Structures are given as C-alpha cells and as structure tokens.
C-alpha cells in the first residue's frame, strides 16, 4: 500500500482554489517556460526562414528542401509546445482534449453538411481554449492534429497552426472577448489572419497547393495574375481563414453560452478570468 499523503502540499500565492495544476517547483516552471519559448521560436523561425529562402523558380519540381524544413520546424515547434503544456494540465482539462478532437471532426462535418465553403475544423479547439485557457488551447490544437492524422495524415503538418489558433482563442477568452457575442468573431478574424499566414508555407511547400477545390480556385486566380505559389496561397489563406475563424469563434461562443453555468464554472480559468459575461460566482444572477 502506498504511503501518499491524503492532502496535497500547499501552493504558493497566486493560485486560485481550483489550481491543482500549479504543482511543481520554480525550476520546473522555468523549464516549461523555456520549452514554450523554444516551441514558439521554432515556429516563428521556420516561417521567416521559409519566406526568405523560398525557391525563386519552382519549374524544376516541388522543393524537397523547403518541404523538409517546413515539416521539421513546425512539427518540432508543436512537439515542444505539447511537451511544455501536457504534463502540467489538470485532469479536468486533459479529458477535454479527446472531446475537442472529436468535436473538430464531427462539428466540422456537420457544418460541412450545410454546404458553406469553409473548413470549420477548429470548433472543438476554440471551445476548449475558451473553457481552459491558452496553454490548454495550444496543446489541444497541436495534439488534436496529431491524433487526427491517424485518419487524415495531411493535417499533421498543420499542427503548429492549430496550436496557434488554440493559443490565441485562449488569450481572447482571458481578455474578455467572449463576454460579448459580437467581439468573438472579431477575435476570430484576427486569429485567422495569423493562423492563415503561418499555415500557407505548409500548403505551398509540403503539398504544392491546397486540399480543396474551392480554395484551389482562389489560388488559381492569384497564380493567373502572376503571383508566386507562396504568395498566391498566402493571399488565399488571408481571404478564407479570417472568415472561417470568425464563424468558428462565433459558433464556439454560442455553444459556450448554451452550456449550463454549473458546467462552465467547473473550469477555474472561466471563474478566475471571468470569461463569460455577467456570471460572477459571488453574485449569481437571479
């Protein structure tokens, strides 16, 4: 029989009553912060490198060099972010990750059945980010890409972009942008711009184009005007992604509003940062 103590050691100041994830020493926290920074740096560095060294002439075939750099750099970044966040996430957040993934897939398909020309593949990630915060959002985004790749390997290289979406959604929630319904799509729009720009090199260098016919048509139009492949795909992403993410954030907001308060208030992040409007624990509305 193990001789664990019945109570957990007291944590320092600054952790709310629900912060059971705060375990760990100052050294551990610094290491995790370093991992997070390294992950973000790997993603940003890869993006800058790819844009600067993009092949001037792609007439000789797809660039293996850029593909390898894009794959390696972005995946490394995603893995570092997961490694930084995963071990310290509380179980209550962890069990949401499979749910987020399932919602990404299923809600994506449901919305796809309405015939609207968007991807809607991040609803679950955004939902979890709103409930559990930026770190959980980033880990959820990256991890769900990895698991999703078991059915569709082409989403694997986009793990870094998915992490960015989750992270930014969490930041928006912390900043109170989900308290008013009309602010959520604005946050989604901005997120879409950044996520689209980061994902464009993957589409251009790893896949040589986009996965859908609709998006392919938009890229074709820019190519017809003489743009380079990366420029054309980036412009296409800047058209589709902000719109897509604005809708996704709005849907996520509607879903969060539809949840009962007992459910949303389970999440320390929602309580501490007052993510949802008018719902303060001390003075609940009638």
């Amino acid at each position, binding site marked *: *029989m*193990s001789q*664990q*103590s*019945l*109570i*957990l050691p*007291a944590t320092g100041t600054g952790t*709310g*009553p*629900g912060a*059971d994830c705060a375990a760990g020493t100052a050294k551990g926290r610094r290491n995790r912060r370093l991992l997070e920074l390294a992950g973000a740096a790997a993603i940003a560095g890869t993006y800058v490198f790819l844009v600067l060294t993009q092949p001037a002439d792609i007439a000789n075939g797809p660039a293996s060099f850029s593909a390898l750099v894009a794959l390696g750099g972005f995946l490394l970044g995603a893995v570092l972010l997961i490694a930084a966040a995963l071990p310290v996430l509380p179980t209550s957040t962890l069990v949401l990750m499979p749910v987020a993934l399932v919602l990404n897939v299923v809600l994506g398909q449901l919305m796809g059945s309405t015939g609207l020309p968007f991807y809607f593949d991040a609803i679950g990630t955004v939902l979890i980010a709103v409930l559990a915060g930026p770190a959980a959002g980033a880990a959820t985004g990256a991890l769900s890409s990895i698991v999703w790749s078991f059915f569709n390997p082409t989403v694997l290289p986009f793990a870094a972009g998915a992490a960015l979406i989750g992270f930014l959604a969490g930041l928006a929630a912390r900043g109170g942008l989900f308290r008013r319904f009309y602010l959520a799509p604005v946050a989604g729009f901005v997120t879409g711009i950044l996520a689209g720009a980061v994902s464009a090199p993957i589409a251009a260098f790893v896949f040589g184009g986009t996965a859908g016919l609709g998006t392919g048509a938009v890229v074709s139009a820019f190519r017809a005007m003489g743009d380079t492949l990366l420029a054309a795909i980036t412009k296409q992403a800047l058209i589709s992604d902000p719109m897509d993410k604005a809708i996704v954030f709005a849907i996520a907001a509607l879903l969060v*509003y*539809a*949840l*009962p*308060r*007992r*459910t949303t*208030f*389970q999440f*320390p992040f929602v*309580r501490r940062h007052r993510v949802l409007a008018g*719902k303060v*624990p001390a003075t*609940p509305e009638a």
Partner: protein
Amino acid sequence: MTATDPTTAAAATASTAVLAARIGSFSFHGERTPALRDIDLSVRPGVLTAVLGGSGSGKTTLGKLLAGWHRPGQSGTFTGSLTLAGQPLEFRGLEDDPRINPSAWSTRVGYVPQDAAAMLSTVRSTVAEELAFGLENRGTPRRDMLRAVARAAEQTGLTALLDRDPATLSGGELRRLAMACAVVQDPWVLVLDEPLASLDAAGIIQVRDLINRLTGAGTGVVLLSQSADGLARSAGHWIILDGGTATASGIPRELIRSAELARTGTLLPAVTHAVPAVRGRAPEPEAAPVLELFGLGFGYPGTGDADGEPLLRDLELTVRPGEIVAITGPNGAGKSTLLRHLNGLLRPHTGEVRIQGRSIAGIPTGRIAASVGLLFQHPRDQLFERTVLREASFGLRRLHGRDAAARADEALEAVGLAGAARTHPAELPASQQRLLALATVLARGPAVLALDEPTVGLDRHGLDRLDRAVAAAAARGAAVVLVTHDAAYARATAHRVLALDGGSLREG
C-alpha cells in the same frame, strides 16, 4: 494545516468511525443555494450505512464529496470537516484550506457511480487492464499488480471476463467491473451510488453477495439509494436526506415508517404499487381506433434470431382513444424497436401503421410528431434548449399559435416543473429531466402517447406525476402505449398488458 480543535462529539465518533464527515455546507461554484448542508455522517468498519432520499436530494453529491471525487475548493465551496482514520481535515471555504489528494484519498475511500461506465478509463482494451489502470498510475510493481487484479476479479466474479473488451460487457457485468476498479485498491470505505439500479435479478444477487463479503471483511460500505429495498433494509444505520440536508438518522426499523422518509419520495418497493394508480374508465369499445398496426414486420439488416426470423413479424395492435396499453417483454425482444415504428423513426418492412385512420407511410417523423409523442429512454438526447420553459415551448407556436405559452405552462405544471421554468435543463436531476421530456411531449397534446421505460430512475414523487400525466392524457382521449420491464407497474397502470414475444404481441 490539519485539525483546528474538532468538537468533542466529532472526536468521539472519529474514535470508532473509519470515516466521519461533518458537513456545514457545500455549494457548487457559481450557485447560491448549497447543494448540501448540516449533515453528520460516520462510517464504521464492517457496517453498511444507507443514505436514502428522493431524486435531487443530494445523495450523489454527498457520495462524491466523501470519496474525494468532488474536492473541496476545486468542485465547490465546503465548510465542515472530513476525518479519515483519525486524521481530521478542517475546511472553512478559504483558499488556504487543505487540498485533498484524490489519488491517495481514493485508495482509502472508493466510490462507484450509478453510471458504471463513468468509472472506466475508456483507454484500456481488456477488463484486466482496466482493473490495473489505477495500480499502474500508482506505480505498483507488476507482480503485485497481477496478484491484486486476480484477487479483485475473483471477489467480483469477473475472472472469466478478464480478457474481454470492457465496451462489450452487459450492464450487470459493467457494474461489477466498476466495483472491482474500486475494490482493487482495498479501500477502508466503499461508497456505492444506486448499485442495484437497472440490474436484473441475477445481477442483484451477485452485487448483494459482494457487498456482504465486503462488510464481512471489515470494509465500511455507504449505500446511496432512492429505494428502501431489501439491500437498504439490511443496513445497520440509515440517514435520510431531503433537499440536501439530513432530516433523520437512526436504525432502519425506527425510520421505515417515519414522516421524514415518507416526505423524501424514497420508494418503498413493498407498498409502491399496492394501491392501483388512478386509472380512468375503460375506453368505449366502439370508438374509432387512434392507433392501428397491421401485419407489422421488421428486422435490422444483418440480424435476426437463430432461424433468421425478423425481430417483429405479423404484429397487430389496435388502441382506442383513452386506452392505456402496456407492453412488456425481455431485453432485446424489440420493445423499443416497436415504439419507434409509431412515429416513423423506423419504417416497417411489411405491414402498415395507421394513426387516426391514416397511414403514416411517407410522412416525415417531424410531422408525425404532431399526433404521436414519443418519450425516449435517455431524456438528455431529447433536450436542447437553454431553459426549461423554452424547452417545453419548442415548436408549439407552429402547432398551437397563440395558445403556445399557456400550453407550455400547463405541461410544466402537470409534471411539477412550473417552479423551475428558468432553470437550465441540464442542471435538473436526471429524474426531472425525464419529467421535462415528458412535458415537452404532453404540451403538444398528441393523439398517441408512446413512453419507453418511463419509470426508470423516478422517485415516488416522480412516479405520482407520471401516473397522473398518463391518466390525464387518457382522460382527454389520447391512446397511451408504454413499454416497461416493471410488470407490477404495467398491471397497475394499463387497461391491457401485452407481452412482446417471438416478434408479435399476445395478451400477458
């Protein structure tokens, strides 16, 4: 961090009790009214303690609080104390309260939820690995782990099932697996939430045997139940819970006839159906039938029994206005399948369904719903609105125009939910969710009311509401078809009891 001078009374109980709880109040985050208040409870080794109360009385919350599933601070605000094996923990609802270590606490106090599947990790592919999950997480050496798994499996009668996929287990097997997952840690106290709910006779005997063996071996067992059944009557001590607070406690013999118990809505199996429910006059035999099934045949693709016969064959049924028909039969006989034919969710391969004299072939389910109301076994799937009132009003405007609001209020009144009109449906206890789903069906005033296992999970108050709602629907001329495994309920409620057997109905 530990005790700040516990009261002398608490100290006295703690000396003999392995687990003692003094609950001042416990409220979930963001809620003003406490879910639990003023409860004193102590669990002695080898003694069965029963906590009895109706639906929504706080039994589950209490069980989870005792077992560290609801942790003070994390799940809600708790004032009071928990004393485990003489180590008292005081909680004042403040940030510097002690924080329970769920991993260590649960090796001493195990909890088995009513929904046994909620206990499982979902990530282990065999029963043996599922049992080992908790041991793996605590770093138990493999040899000890194998021994502990074998012992727990033997205790719970799972030895023959060790290599099965947990997802393929039956309800009773799943319940025993969930209990084994707690027993494998060899806890001092085991909290069981409705351990006999929806088990068949054989399953009930096995679970009761296991509980006897556990108390015999010195484990303190806490039973949470809304039925004062044989198991509850074998308890050494009762606590009666009503509205989140303990209204009485003592030995069963003294409490069984108490007013406190009667108020809670706890079921007393011996007397519940002794008085027949209010049943209207038998319907007039010459009235035109509301529901007719002619030569109904149906089988799921790729299934069928040993002879390849379809699930339903040549099934005939005629129900007149105001008539209540109960359909009984063993699991898998096709009772729910039959009900789904009444509103077109399933379409017969042969034969015809007529509602008010007209065939429903080719009419979408959503339209048939105007004349046929179907209540499902799992009410949660049927609810999707933000408040109870919106739920009951959904789609009424199209059917009833200006009357919509009045009809919704009336339906909520009928099931006793008028006071909860602004509550979120998901925050209702399960039995009230079922009543709300019933209200959504009643509000539409359907000509045919089809109810799938309507009694499951209802306490006595809920059963009363259900009885009255069914009688009222029949009185205004609706045909009621209900499917139930509870033969006594069927006899007490229905004008006719039919058994579904061999694919068709016969007088039961």
